């Protein structure tokens, strides 16, 4: 009898969990703060950070992801990779309707990938580079044909990265200046309601969403508040409920975490994986010497930077690949630059490299360019300046505006060391390779290999890992790759930033994907 009860209970729990709508309370309005106001609501042609925070709730992707970065079904019920890795077959849901009532079919997938993302999306151009065709044998099957295996595509199909567009809407007219760029129509849990410029975007519940019973919320209001302290105050008072990705300064987030009604989450950046780094100009003395570069990397006090510049929202970077890839087996640590005797090691390396201390205690001087992203970057530069003074290296800081800095770093290569902010994104192929691969040394292209370091060995490892479909084998390739990059240290990897998301405790399930605030909020509900 006992056994029967257990079985019945188990069945009951399964039944309940498969019908989440009954267990949760529906209704309510969630106020999200996004900063700055997005320039448009066209995530298919722009990756500007605030856009996705709104549109990921309006559009669906073919897949969703768990915190382990493993794909979960969304518009695609299932997918299958051909044994040779050159085709991916998606079985699509049959019950999906766009907000205008028209059904979602494989033609929409073909149109979105081939006509829009592959041609116009800033990252899609690279992601879908090897997609030669999307075949549509029937209305609910889409086959991606690939020139070479591209397993990383399966990491880039979220509603944020690759939103599926209705062909009958976005197929009309020029996609770059489309009439619906500010009034998006998708199939997601929320429909676009209204955009009052300078104030808010209102998203309303999609009553005919294909996931029965979802979303729970009646409405999402995305507010735009220009002043940082007002944003913090509004969150503190509970007038707004969610804010992330730079909307709240790090030190304010630390303070808000102490309030009883507020939770600050550092989850939800697992598919973004931002890394703060120091980029060396490896074609110029003294940073053409790997020993000098390692010495600089040892000298930076990562723990101090994390505590006092990023207010605890980060952890020391262990190498070129973020530790967020640990669950998928692609992470491996490089040289540990945080060891206790790091200053002695740095001094020794500089002595060996032929830069002894001169009479005034200094070894050499250089100009340190600061990433023009705001004040934490200035504080970071000032901290590094003080850290380097300890090993006799004198840094002079330079702070320019973004276009000048980008040109100096990625076109003219007219720098010695610059701080930098690079995202690992959803897969090392998308976010990591660009930083050190020889074919990404492209003057004029930003956020690629600015150090101009590369080696045939690391190139080969990356090329192999890019087409390898087995995660364990990829992991081994990357472990060797990380070690080699770490030894050469063309970049000093300083910290992995964990963006804080401020959440009012009234609302549950806000951060339930590795995309955080770029999630679709379908399962967010009031307590």
């Amino acid at each position, binding site marked *: 009898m006992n056994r029967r009860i257990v079985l019945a209970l188990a069945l009951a729990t399964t039944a309940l969990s498969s019908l989440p709508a009954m267990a949760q309370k529906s209704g309510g309005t969630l106020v999200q703060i996004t900063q700055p106001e997005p320039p448009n609501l066209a995530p298919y042609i722009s990756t500007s950070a605030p856009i996705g925070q709104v549109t990921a709730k309006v559009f669906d992707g073919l897949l969703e992801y768990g915190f382990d970065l493993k794909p979960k079904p969304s518009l695609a019920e299932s997918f299958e990779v051909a044994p040779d890795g050159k085709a991916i077959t998606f079985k699509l849901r049959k019950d999906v309707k766009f907000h205008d009532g028209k059904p979602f079919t494989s033609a929409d997938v073909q149109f979105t990938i081939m006509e829009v993302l592959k041609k116009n999306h800033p990252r899609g151009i690279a992601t879908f580079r090897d997609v030669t065709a999307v075949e549509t044998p029937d209305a609910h099957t889409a086959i991606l044909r690939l020139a070479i295996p591209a397993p990383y595509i399966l990491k880039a199909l979220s509603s944020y990265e690759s939103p599926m567009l209705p062909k009958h809407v976005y197929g009309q007219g020029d996609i770059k200046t489309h009439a619906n760029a500010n009034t998006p129509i998708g199939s997601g849990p929320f429909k676009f309601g209204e955009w009052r410029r300078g104030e808010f975007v209102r998203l309303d519940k999609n009553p005919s969403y294909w996931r029965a019973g979802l979303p729970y919320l009646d409405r999402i209001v995305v507010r735009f508040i220009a002043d940082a302290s007002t944003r913090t105050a509004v969150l503190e008072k509970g007038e707004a409920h969610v804010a992330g990705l730079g909307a709240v300064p790090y030190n304010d987030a630390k*303070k808000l975490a102490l309030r009883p009604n507020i939770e600050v989450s550092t989850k939800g950046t697992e598919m973004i994986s931002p890394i703060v780094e120091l980029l060396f100009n490896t074609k110029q003395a003294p940073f053409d010497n790997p020993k000098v570069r390692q010495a600089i990397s040892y000298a930076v006090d990562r723990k101090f930077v994390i505590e006092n510049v990023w207010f605890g929202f980060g952890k020391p970077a262990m190498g070129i690949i973020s530790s967020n890839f640990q669950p998928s087996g692609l992470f491996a640590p490089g040289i540990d630059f945080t060891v206790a005797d790091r200053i002695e090691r740095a001094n020794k390396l500089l002595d060996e490299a032929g830069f002894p201390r001169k009479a005034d205690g200094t070894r050499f001087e250089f100009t340190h360019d600061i990433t023009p992203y705001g004040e934490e970057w200035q504080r970071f530069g*000032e901290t590094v300046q003080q850290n380097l003074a300890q090993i006799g290296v004198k840094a002079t800081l330079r702070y320019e505006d973004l276009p000048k800095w980008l040109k100096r770093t990625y076109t003219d290569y007219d720098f010695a060391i610059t701080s930098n902010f690079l995202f690992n994104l959803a897969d090392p192929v998308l976010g990591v390779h660009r930083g050190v691969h020889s074919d990404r040394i492209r003057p004029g292209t930003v956020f690629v290999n600015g150090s101009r370091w590369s080696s045939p060995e690391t190139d080969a490892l990356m090329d192999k890992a890019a087409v390898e479909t087995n995660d364990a084998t990829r992991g081994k390739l990357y472990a060797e790759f990380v070690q080699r990059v770490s030894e050469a240290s063309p970049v000093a990897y300083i910290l992995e930033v964990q963006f804080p998301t401020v959440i009012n405790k009234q609302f549950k399930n806000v951060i339930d994907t590795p995309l955080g605030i770029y999630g679709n909020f379908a399962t967010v509900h009031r307590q």
Partner: protein
Amino acid sequence: MKKFWSRFLGNPRVYLGLIWLGLLLLVAISANVLAPTDPFAIVGKPMAPPGGEFWLGTDSLGRNVLAGLIHGSRATILIAVLATLFAVAFGTLIGAIAGYYGGLIDNVLMRFTEFFQTIPSFLFAIVLIAILSPSALNLVVAIATVSWPPIARVVRGEVLTVKSREFVQAAVVAGQGDAAILLKQVLPNTLSPLIVTGSLLIATAILVESALSFLGLGAPNLMSWGFMIGAGRSFMREAWWLVTVPGIAILLTVLAINLVGEGLNDALNPRLADL
């Protein structure tokens, strides 16, 4: 001249201003003695409140606020005074030529001046720094560039009144050249309004420099009061001293300069003072 000194120093407000400015000058000159370490050096626990090991506390990176204040006085004063000198020199040149020659030259130079005057000066300074990139020299250039037009107008007005006086006409009759007349006869007589405007300009320059540094457009390797406020403004609620201390320093300095400037004005234009 005797009358001037007695009028100037007989004003108690001038005394207050002079005392503060004198103190400031002393601190600026002996900054390296008073605070021998680099003001950017991380010397203690971040955000230590005033009154502990560090008299005025430490900032978000553990830098000594007192050392920042001392070295900041040097940067702040140097930039403001240099910018003012440049502005006065250029403004006087333009104003004097325009006023003395009149006619087409006057027209062209004054339209040129107005061109600069029509641009809101602070926004103009921001644009200049954005183009030139922040550094101590560029701050001086930017502040001077936005500050000279009022000087030019004041000098031109004075030159216009002075040049019609008999002694100038006498100099013309005596055969003196234009340059000699301008330098020896006209300009010395425009000095009093120039000194007053110039001294007040220093106060404005301090404010502009502080505002630029506050916005993060200050010289990145130079500790100034505006920089301290800019770096501290995010922590206003938990570390009030970071903005309050340099804020009070700026307030007192600008006030002192204004007091002295007004005192100069009263002493140089006694008729105005009596009104």
